[in-house]
């Protein structure tokens, strides 16, 4: 065991740190006040990802022929950590980078890799995920959006829901039913849909946060070339699961959690109640310290997984808990922040006397969404117990 970084890695960290200091987008209130999907805001976000990519900090592990650098996991981890520490904005192309990209690398054709991967990196093409449907949530495999193969084209009809970022996405990776007669897991295909194709309607849904982060997407005789199929026809469930695995790792990442924890401690120290800082209240101290033990456990747990990845070892049952633990932890941190703020907690972003711009209340709700998205905590527990512990299925 060795917890310090190599000289090369330390030097790289310094380099990233300096780069971020000089290149971080300037705070622009006229932009940050816009809705996340506002064209101007999306444009700025794409520019930011492009800049990061040009600096060599995006999807560094991908192979060189598709625009990556074949760097080891450690390098990307360092970049991710430094970005969080610098409070840098996230990447607008995260679904492409974190979900579709790795899936294509694993299961796509050579042609697909060459066509899609480079533009994922540069944010020239933004992707959204067409999975959930009104009648297919946790039982995703029951999905009914139909794709009929006619000649060289799929004709797609149906509806997706909770589709994040569909308003400004260029493409969607989508699960469709190609064989209605087959058992539910064996009649699904995984296809790539150009969002500009005629017959697609995107209708934003307002989340409890007040933002329109996700959408309903309707398909009416939407024509998709057969070449846009990933994996074999009717084998889409396997491809979907590869994507879900990457998604859960992304959602369960606790790099940001550490920063949230620091902010929480700062909040507890700065808020005064009953004539003393809230952080001096015995009960609050217990709660803070309990969260700290959980945050630190996840930090070293992620180091352990990073080491396994570097050594080419299989992640095992340890990786199955990431999504469950990470998302619940983020939400619990926000919940304690609200408790510390008391009557100030529900104040809106623009209200007088609001604390930290209302970020905590927003995050409190947003992180609850992440407990549900990408497979609910309850589904995660099924996965851990069935695949991890070998407990039998319920049915």
């Amino acid at each position, binding site marked *: *065991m*060795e*917890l*310090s*970084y*190599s000289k090369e*890695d330390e030097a790289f960290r310094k380099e990233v740190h300096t780069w971020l200091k000089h290149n971080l987008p300037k705070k622009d209130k006229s932009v940050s006040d816009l809705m996340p999907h506002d064209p101007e805001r999306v444009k700025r976000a794409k520019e930011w990802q492009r800049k990061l990519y040009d600096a060599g900090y995006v999807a560094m592990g991908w192979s060189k022929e598709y625009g990556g650098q074949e760097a080891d996991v*450690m390098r990307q981890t360092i970049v991710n950590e430094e970005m969080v520490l610098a409070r840098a904005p996230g990447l607008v192309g995260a679904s492409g980078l974190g979900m579709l990209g790795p899936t294509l690398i694993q299961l796509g054709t050579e042609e697909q890799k060459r066509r899609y991967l480079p533009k994922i990196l540069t944010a020239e093409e933004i992707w959204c995920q067409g999975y959930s449907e009104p009648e297919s949530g946790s039982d995703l495999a029951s999905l009914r959006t139909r794709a009929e193969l006619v000649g060289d084209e799929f004709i797609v009809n149906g509806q997706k829901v909770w589709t994040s970022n569909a308003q400004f996405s260029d493409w969607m990776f989508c699960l469709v039913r190609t064989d209605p007669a087959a058992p539910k897991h064996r009649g699904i295909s995984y296809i790539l849909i150009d969002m500009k194709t005629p017959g697609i309607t995107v209708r934003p849904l307002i989340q409890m946060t007040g933002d329109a982060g996700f959408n309903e997407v309707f398909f009416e005789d939407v024509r998709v070339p057969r070449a846009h199929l990933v994996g074999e026809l009717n084998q889409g469930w396997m491809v979907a699961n590869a994507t879900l695995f990457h998604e859960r790792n992304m959602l369960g990442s606790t790099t940001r959690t550490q920063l949230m924890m620091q902010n929480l*401690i700062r909040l*507890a*120290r700065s808020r005064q109640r009953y004539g003393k800082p809230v*952080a*001096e209240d*015995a009960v609050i*101290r*217990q709660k*803070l*310290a*309990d969260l*700290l*033990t*959980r945050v*630190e*456990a*996840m*930090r*070293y*747990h992620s*180091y*352990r997984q*990073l*080491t*396994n990845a*570097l*050594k080419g070892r299989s992640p095992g*049952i*340890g990786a*199955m*808990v990431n999504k*469950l*633990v990470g998302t619940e932890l983020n939400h619990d941190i926000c919940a304690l922040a609200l408790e510390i703020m008391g009557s100030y907690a529900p104040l809106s972003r623009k209200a007088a006397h609001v604390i930290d711009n209302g970020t905590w209340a927003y995050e409190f709700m947003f992180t609850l969404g992440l407990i549900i998205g990408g497979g609910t905590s*309850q589904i*995660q*527990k*099924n996965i*851990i*117990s*069935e695949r*991890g*512990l*070998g*407990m*039998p*299925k*319920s049915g």
Partner: protein
Amino acid sequence: MDFGLSEEQEMLQQSAREFLTQECPPTFVREMSKSADGFSRELQRKMAEQGWTGLLVPETYGGLGLGMLDMALLLEEMGRAVVPGPFLFSSVLCTLALKQGGTTAQKKVWLPRLASGEAVGTVAFLEADDRLDAAGITLKAKKSRDGYTLSGTKMFVPFAAVADVLLVAVRTSGRAEEGVSLILVERETPGLTIKPLEIFDLTRRVYEVECKNIVVPKTAVVGNEGQGWKILSRLIDAACIALAADSLGGAQKALEMAVEYTKVRTQFNRPIASFQALKHLAAEIVSEIEPARALVWYAAHAFDTRPREASRAAALAKARLSDVYSRTTNRAVQMHGGIGFTWEHDMHFWFKRAKWNEFAFGDASFHRERLAQIEGF
């Protein structure tokens, strides 16, 4: 950056598991629970042959000279097997105290004997107040011409009846950290009386130790007079890590037993493992144990190599594992249903050990407050 185990460490883990499956199955634990002192000389001899009793003892004194992470891995396996006996107190705590603060003469006398398993040591720290801070140490050591005269009572001393030597925390002056001294007292010293305190965890026997004007020579002091707290606070960190490791192994085993049972137990015409109520309990345990494992490794590693982080890391590990082990065994008993509540079933050994581990050397709340202070909340 390498947060993983070496090949040797993985081998140690594996051989320990095999050895304990063979030498310390639940039938053995049950048998030992009926014995008067909960200590098997036979097992002690065999563990010594494996080098375990001397794992932390420097090679020059006949040990293996390994570190805390190696020990934590071994203790994890011992927790898994709920090994009864004084190992943690003798081969970890007493050994570390001598290694850190002992005079050359003390090391020469005791370390080879502790390493070979021929001698057993223990630590007498707590008193009737059950305080973990320096102010809780009031047993008086009065300086005389020949050495010290000890009078007072120590409580909850693990395995005092089978220990050859006790490391006793005494007060030579003052009331706080300054003035705490550590003194080696041999069990046969006149004036020392040892009374067993009946306890529900039969793998951990504890005693009340009374010192009635015991006379010990000056040479019995470990470290300098009045400077004992420094060694003791380091020992508390070590104890936290050791107990956390033991708890980790115990929790993992309790989970495995419970899951195994639910797969074979049928109700409503199906294995109860197919009910989500139980699957989710099991998954929640996994989601607590897996990240906690990294915390134990980190704390053990920090103990030897990152002195500035060591106390914080030990507190993190002890706080978390105190909760996790107790919660896990509670769930594991429930997953067994009625049979889990019987004396006949083995689960209660883990359930009880979890409670002992939880309170020993500070419970979760104690260490959370400690963390709050370290972090400056």
